[in-house]
């Protein structure tokens, strides 16, 4: 599989920047410590919005963090990889091989997605080991399914994002629509119930809202699979709508860039 060739290549490149790898792990760890102390500041002040989650803000944010890594990867990985390949000059060499542009795009970003996946799992394991998350075997499978659905949702968003880079080179409305709104409205660091009703309605259009909600219900409130079916189905609906649209838009953006000869321009 050609995708594995991309993953191997990116893994070797990542390992060649050892100090950067060390720093990125350190930064992730420090961000957890940062949130831990923020949550400690408010220990004892039970928020009505966190009642459902035992009032534990740190656990609440930890689940939000586990999903949020997909947001930045989904939004930036494809577009950044395309742009980096254009700037570095590797895109021309890649396209001249008998490899589909989809394989090139997904292959070049796959390690970032895998890292996000591992990071999400790692955060949840930390939560389960040190902060009282309860993960039983049944939950584990559904947790992985939810993370997979978030992964696919942001894969679709990432392809849309890359389409704009392909055609316009700079300026990417998808980042604005899904990026900032996901961080702000997706319930990563605060429950969406604190938002005004119109913003809550917008939040329900974002896949991350349903993913964080579903994971929290499973991990923090001991809901079972039946209770989160509706949330999972919303994620599925998002994928069913957006994934084909992303493929079509990306296909046309590639065609447009190939027609006007701007594929490797930046």
């Amino acid at each position: 599989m050609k995708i594995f060739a991309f993953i191997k290549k990116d893994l070797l490149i990542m390992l060649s920047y050892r100090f950067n790898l060390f720093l990125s792990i350190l930064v992730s760890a420090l961000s957890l410590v940062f949130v831990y102390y923020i949550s400690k500041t408010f220990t004892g002040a039970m928020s009505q919005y966190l009642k459902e989650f035992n009032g534990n803000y740190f656990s609440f944010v930890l689940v939000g963090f586990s999903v949020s890594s997909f947001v930045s990867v989904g939004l930036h990985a494809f577009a950044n990889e395309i742009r980096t390949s254009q700037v570095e000059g590797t895109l021309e060499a890649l396209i001249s091989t008998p490899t589909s542009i989809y394989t090139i795009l997904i292959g070049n970003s796959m390690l970032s997605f895998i890292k996000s996946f591992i990071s999400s799992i790692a955060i949840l394991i930390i939560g389960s080991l040190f902060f009282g998350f309860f993960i039983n075997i049944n939950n584990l499978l559904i947790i992985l399914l939810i993370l997979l659905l978030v992964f696919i949702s942001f894969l679709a968003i990432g392809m849309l994002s890359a389409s704009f880079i392909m055609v316009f080179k700079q300026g990417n409305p998808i980042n604005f629509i899904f990026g900032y709104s996901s961080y702000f409205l997706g319930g990563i660091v605060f429950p969406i119930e604190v938002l005004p009703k119109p913003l809550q309605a917008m939040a329900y259009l974002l896949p991350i809202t349903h993913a964080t909600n579903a994971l929290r219900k499973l991990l923090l409130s001991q809901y079972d699979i039946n209770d989160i079916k509706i949330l999972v189905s919303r994620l599925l609906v998002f994928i069913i709508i957006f994934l084909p649209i992303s493929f079509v838009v990306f296909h046309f953006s590639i065609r447009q860039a190939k027609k006007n000869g701007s594929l490797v321009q930046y």
Partner: protein
Amino acid sequence: MSFSCPEQKISCILGPNGAGKTTIIKILSGLVIQDSGEIDFLNVKLKDNKNQIGLMTSNERSFYWRLTGRQNLDFFAELYGLTGKRKNDTINKMLKDFSLDKEADIPLRLYSTGMKYKLLIIRALISDPKVVILDEPTSHIDPLARENIHKIIKENIIAKHLKTVILCTHDLEEAQFLADHLILLNEGRVIAEGSYDDLKKKINPNIVFKIFFVKKPKSSFFKLFQNYKLTENENIVEINLDKESLIPEIIKKAVENDGKILWCKEEKESLFEIFKRLTIKDL
């Protein structure tokens, strides 16, 4: 547009800026889609035959500099569908053929420009394509490295690996030295195609034969060739001939008529001259 490239020979695409050379290369390598029509390559639709084309550009940055030469080749070989033992054997053989086997496992950022150019050529050959496209293969390199690349193209790509080469260059000296077949483009059209001699005949079908006499032959010599355009400039006599086979006869007659020859040569027009005359005429 249609042109042919003889098998296991070097064909060179020439043309002024904007003639369409780069567009052809980009279409062949899949970077650009043509406005209309289909690209047939080896009697098969090009998109189904990409494995048969190896592209070498002069862009050293088209590799991953944090990886070694071998790791780069390993990655690109997999994109060409090579796996396992076949992939490793091909890479090892290529590295040996191009004398890069000793440096294969050092990071590419430590390679000299000449070594990176060799790796660019290896990458173009890795899938064992029938046709290798060399796009400006010696731009940005010094004359010694350039001579080395020329040697590699002739001795390695053509003679050893038996590839058909399409060369795209602005360097007419390089084209004249390397190419067996020339394709001249202007404004997106093929305006002339053939060997250097074919193109020369197109602008001037006659052969210009020059003789430098230490002592000019008797007038009877000039009478013998009075039907040909003959010009005298001090000791140099220039004769326009319609066939090359007359040359030995001319030399023989000049000597028989007491002429003493210091040197004689068939005057060849440079590729630059041919290029200029064909493209300006076409304009």
